[in-house]
């Protein structure tokens, strides 16, 4: 038994290491980890708690009831308000708190054009230009193709679609 002391010391070290490991483990792993699976359960609630930014055209109508009524009665109802004007929450935060936190410059400038009516044809082209892949059964696209050909001579590079068309109803002004 001359070497028994080696084992005792080794076992003591192993025991200390195990206790230390279990302690660190209990401190590091979140309490709700593994409740439903190999993940932190409260992460689901955290993700769900994010604030929706697109509020829907109904929310826009609460303040802009005149434009909403015009839009509803018109022929341009497939795109929603926020398609061109950007997320409603961004608008609300900007107007009420003068805050644009959480929105990248790209988003802020992209929708500024539509609000300021400085747009040319770019935003209209997103949907209306006849491209090779677009189903020709869509009347709005087919008519624009014909329209551009018909009016070719009168269009200048500065011509804006909204010079003639009301973007909310698509009707000629």
């Amino acid at each position, binding site marked *: 038994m*001359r*070497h028994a002391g*080696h084992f005792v010391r*080794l076992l003591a070290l192993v025991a200390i290491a195990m206790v230390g490991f279990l302690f660190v483990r209990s401190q590091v792993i*979140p309490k709700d*980890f*593994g409740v*439903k*699976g*190999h*993940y*932190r359960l409260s*992460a*689901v609630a*955290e*993700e*769900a*708690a*994010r*604030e*929706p*930014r*697109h509020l*829907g055209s109904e929310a826009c109508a609460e303040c802009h009831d005149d434009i909403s009524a015009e839009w509803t009665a018109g022929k341009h109802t*497939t*795109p*929603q308000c*926020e*398609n061109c004007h*950007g*997320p409603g929450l*961004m608008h609300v935060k900007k107007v009420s708190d003068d805050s644009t936190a*959480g*929105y*990248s410059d*790209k*988003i802020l400038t*992209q*929708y500024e054009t539509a609000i300021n009516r400085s747009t040319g044809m770019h935003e209209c*082209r*997103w*949907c209306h*230009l006849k*491209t*090779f*892949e*677009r*189903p020709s059964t*869509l009347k709005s*696209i087919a008519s624009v193709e014909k329209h551009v050909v018909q009016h070719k001579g009168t269009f200048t590079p500065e011509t804006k679609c909204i010079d003639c068309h009301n973007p909310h109803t698509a009707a000629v002004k």
Partner: protein
Amino acid sequence: MHRLSQPAHGGSQVTSISQPDDVSRRRFLETVAKTGGQSFLFGSLFVNTALLRLPQAGHDAKSRAETEIGKGVIYGFVVDTTKCIGCGSCVRACRAENDVPDGYNRTWVEQYTFYPDGEVFVNSPSGGEDGFADPLPTRNVPSGAEQAPMRGFFVPKLCNHCIDTPCIQVCPVGASFKTDEGVVLVDHEHCVGCGYCVQACPFGSRFIDPRTHTAGKCTWCHHRVTKGLLPACVVSCPADARIFGNVSDPESTISRILATNRVQVLKSYLGTRPRTRYIGLDSEVI
């Protein structure tokens, strides 16, 4: 410890085994560490193999009714490629709704163009964010002549929210998970940004956010759908090419669409069982 007697005629044939007196503390600890480490490795290998739940054979053959109908709320997504006009509204809405960093996309639109000589070109400039309003793409064939495209279509892409997800399997810290509704999410508090999931996803649906250094991906707008709203891309689609709903409810719009259409999934041969289904998918779509 047992002590062997020393041979009288010297140590020429004596091996190290027969000389326990030479076992130093250092060698003893080395041997303990080696054998201990080996047995631990073999042990953990056995435990892992035994506990690993491998997909059972015949899994894919189960019908939708068996797996989804009447199971509470299980979300599903249908993309009707025959309706998509490639306007990019979904991409812009997604970026604004989810604060997606520039140069990355949670959803994007691909433009497929077929040429008469059988070549197929796939294009997705900025994920289709600025539309595809450019003139018809022409292509120089080897003879030098320009070749006009034969046919084409748009395919919107997003996370497939697979049932058998490769991305969750590879996460080393449990930061990727699936909710009860079948939505694959990322725990941004827990993610260490190693990027294994980005490489594991066969659909390219994930990226590492350069600002937070955590994995970013489509959540099917989990924060909206849990509040009774539709995902931002679905709301903004002017062509009704995107349909979202509860596939567990046989009366829901998406269930009726699934019941009356021939739907496909992307890369079905990989067996990830995507929950995002496609109408009008060509075999060339990858």
